[in-house]
């Protein structure tokens, strides 16, 4: 009898709290979005699963000695996992389109306005009772507008670890929603004629340019923004490994096995921050709202910047590719391509949109560095 009582007391049913149940449903929602809706499944699936695991009563996944505790403190608190992901992403990134058309860097820069406007917005939310975002919190939230998962996780783990779960959920969800969020904004801000603009074919980019480029980016970051060097440095290492052509086995491992292993752990570790006390509050609603705002402003800024550039320069740019400046590689570039095809079925913008797309990755990393340097 006693044994049965102990057994009963050790069941989940006898120990559930409401918050845990709700957070498990949130985890299930993330799994649903990942599996059924194909929302960034590589990260949302392990993240949703981690959210379920961390909220199991009695099991203690995120307490000292629990699996998710080890994963979080070894890999996310230290920043190692997002940096390794960034290295792998660097090894998958081709800067050719950007080097061929460097003007598109301005589009990637403009789209970062989504970040800084959202920072302002997060502070503005403090006017509403219930919100008390510090400047650190606001910075971590704002980086959602960078549309770059590892950057957001890295910054949040440094500036506002208690908001990490909500920020990661928002960042990846909106990245998956890019095909829904962006097109209306893009259509509203452009005329049919602008959307029809065809761009000149990109010039051939030589191997030496691609090899020197990551080193140049790193050098500039060292000069002007050392706080961004962890992110930019690992990204450039990955890109250099890819482009140099002499360490193909390392490059291949960085963009396959290593990034896969780290992705599983990163997702689980981020999911472990989706506890009821950290997630079920009004601040999460604020973060979700601000994230949507950030993406929208970033998209709009990119498009408007392209229109501005068309005013001052004779070489025309299709303003749709400005929207790709929010990064969300390669989704945003595909969206630009698709919206462009609606107006001109023979106008393939994909390659041109890759320029602002990867510029947006650099821009977000730079913005993250600025926030770390000034707020961190």
């Amino acid at each position, binding site marked *: 009898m006693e044994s049965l009582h102990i057994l009963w007391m050790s069941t989940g049913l006898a120990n559930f709290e409401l918050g845990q149940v709700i957070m498990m449903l949130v985890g299930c929602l993330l799994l649903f979005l990942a599996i059924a809706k194909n929302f960034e499944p590589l990260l949302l699936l392990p993240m949703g699963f981690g959210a379920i695991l961390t909220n199991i009563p009695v099991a203690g996944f995120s307490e000292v000695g629990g699996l998710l505790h080890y994963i979080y403190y070894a890999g996310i608190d230290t920043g190692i996992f997002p940096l390794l992901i960034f290295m792998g992403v660097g090894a998958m990134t081709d800067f050719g389109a950007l080097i061929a058309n460097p003007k598109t*860097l301005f589009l990637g*820069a403009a789209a970062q306005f989504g*970040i*800084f406007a959202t920072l*302002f917005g*997060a502070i503005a939310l403090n006017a509403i009772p219930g919100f008390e975002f510090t400047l650190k919190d*606001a910075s971590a939230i704002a980086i959602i507008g960078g549309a770059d998962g590892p950057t957001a996780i890295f910054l949040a783990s440094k500036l506002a670890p208690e908001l990490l779960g909500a920020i990661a959920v928002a960042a990846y969800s909106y990245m998956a929603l890019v095909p829904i969020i962006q097109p209306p904004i893009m259509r509203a801000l452009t005329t049919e004629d602008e959307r029809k603009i065809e761009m000149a074919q990109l010039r051939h980019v*030589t191997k030496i340019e691609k090899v020197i480029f990551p080193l140049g980016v790193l050098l500039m970051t060292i000069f002007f923004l050392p706080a961004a060097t962890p992110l930019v440095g690992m990204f450039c290492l990955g890109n250099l490994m890819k482009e140099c052509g002499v360490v193909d086995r390392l490059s291949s491992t960085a963009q396959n096995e290593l990034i896969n292993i780290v992705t599983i752990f990163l997702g689980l570790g981020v999911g472990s921050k989706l506890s009821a006390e950290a997630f079920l509050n009004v601040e999460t609603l604020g973060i979700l709202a601000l994230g949507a705002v950030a993406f929208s402003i970033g998209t709009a800024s990119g498009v408007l910047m392209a229109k501005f550039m068309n005013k001052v320069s004779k070489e025309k740019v299709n303003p749709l590719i400005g929207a790709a400046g929010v990064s969300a590689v390669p989704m945003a570039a595909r969206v630009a391509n698709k919206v462009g095809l609606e107006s001109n079925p023979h106008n393939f913008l994909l390659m041109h949109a890759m320029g602002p797309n990867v510029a947006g990755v650099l821009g977000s990393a730079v913005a993250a560095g*600025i926030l770390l340097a000034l*707020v961190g």
Partner: protein
Amino acid sequence: MDNLTQLFVEAGTLMLAGMVFVFAFLGILIIFINKVLLKLAIKFPDPIIQSKPQRKTNKTNVEKGGISPPVVAAISSAVSQYRQQHSKNK
């Protein structure tokens, strides 16, 4: 000046400094690409890489004797198809 106002001022400064910095940084990168990389590209153009494919072709020719082009095409297609599937699985 109360606390919220101060936060607003700080956020505004951050926004301004941040956007200026981002534009400056990526702007210098444009100069870097136009001034440095472009010159490098002209000075060290990509070698016309025929050596590698040629070596391959030679080797294959030696090994495959008198096989008709469509057969070779079929093989290439089969191999590249498998290669694609394989890389997807990874």
